[in-house]
């Protein structure tokens, strides 16, 4: 029982101190899991991280699951997962409960009017980095995808499936990796 608690609290700590999510979490997870606890080897962590990034779902969740599973199987995965989601669950629950009460407040309303356009900028910010080194055909595909989802309200799920099938067929036909 104690080992599950250790896993739970380690990931609780990780969940509590990672703002902004995603890649910002990785160094923190690395320090806790590799340097402090020696739960997993550096190389193995990096290899699994690559897969965690290609799997669906938030990186932090995926990392918690693979570290937990690697250590104590399914129950380990569950303990680490619960640990990493609980802080955000509790915090957002409190926010949701109180937000509806202060939402109509003039100052809060003004603050959110200021924040909304900036959120859009933050969403767009990583795009430049992502397209770097990508072939122009792939960039055109991305542009068409963006237009189709935005203009027709089509669920991105169908496009993801199409991309997955297309990528698999391409590799099967050419016998090598898709040009990036």
């Amino acid at each position, binding site marked *: 029982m104690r080992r599950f608690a250790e896993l739970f609290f380690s990931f609780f700590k990780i969940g509590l101190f990672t*703002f902004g999510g*995603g*890649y910002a979490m990785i160094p923190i997870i690395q320090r806790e899991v590799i340097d402090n606890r020696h739960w997993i080897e550096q190389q193995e962590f990096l*290899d699994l991280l690559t897969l*965690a990034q290609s*799997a*669906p*779902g*938030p990186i*932090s*969740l*995926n990392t918690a699951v693979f570290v937990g599973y*690697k250590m104590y199987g399914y129950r380990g*995965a569950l303990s680490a*997962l619960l640990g990493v*989601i609980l*802080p955000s*669950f509790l915090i*957002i*629950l409190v926010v949701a409960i109180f*937000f509806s009460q202060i939402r109509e407040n003039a*100052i809060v*309303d*003004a*603050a*959110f009017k*200021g*924040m*909304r*356009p*900036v*959120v*859009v900028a*933050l*969403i*767009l910010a990583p*795009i430049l980095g*992502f*397209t770097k080194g*990508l072939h122009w055909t*792939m*960039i055109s*595909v*991305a542009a068409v*995808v*963006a*237009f189709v*989802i935005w203009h027709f309200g089509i669920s*991105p799920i169908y*496009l*993801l499936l199409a*991309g*997955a099938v297309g*990528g*698999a067929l391409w*590799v*099967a036909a050419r016998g*090598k*990796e*898709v040009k990036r």
Partner: protein
Amino acid sequence: MIYLQLFISYLKIGFFGFGGGYAMLSLIQNEIVVQNGWLTNAEFADIVAISQMTPGPIAINSATYVGYSVAGFWGSVVATISVCMPALTIMTLITRFFLLLKDNHIFKGIISGMRPIVIGMIVSAALLLLFPSTQEGASFIDAWSWGLFLGACYLSYRKVNPIMLIVLSALAGIAIYYLPTLIA
């Protein structure tokens, strides 16, 4: 049956949430704003802002928030658990079959094929907020909005911390939209 709807929506979001954080926004937006109308576009932008200031991934944050606002405490529990379930199952399988997948060409092809889609999804999330189909619940309301947007684009290009940008924009919002009402 609202719990079932929340369960299915967030299961889909969890299952198809490739590309992490911002790519999932498009999926969340499609399910929550476009398909089910649980939130307006502006409310969706508000959650993204809140999510930047609180710890944890946006998928979890939005699940808890939307679940609570649609169906109370149990709604938030249902949505949060269902968004985690795919990650739990899929990552367990991946960890178990790690060596098989590591150098598999088809697997790599699938991942590379989804890459441009994921980029397009991120852009579409921004487009929907920039140019919504209805003005009700729009994120851009006047010239100030565009000024803040362009300023934030420049500052995030210069690698200014996103949390800092959110806090600054909240202060700017108060200065632009609240302070003048005091004088008037």
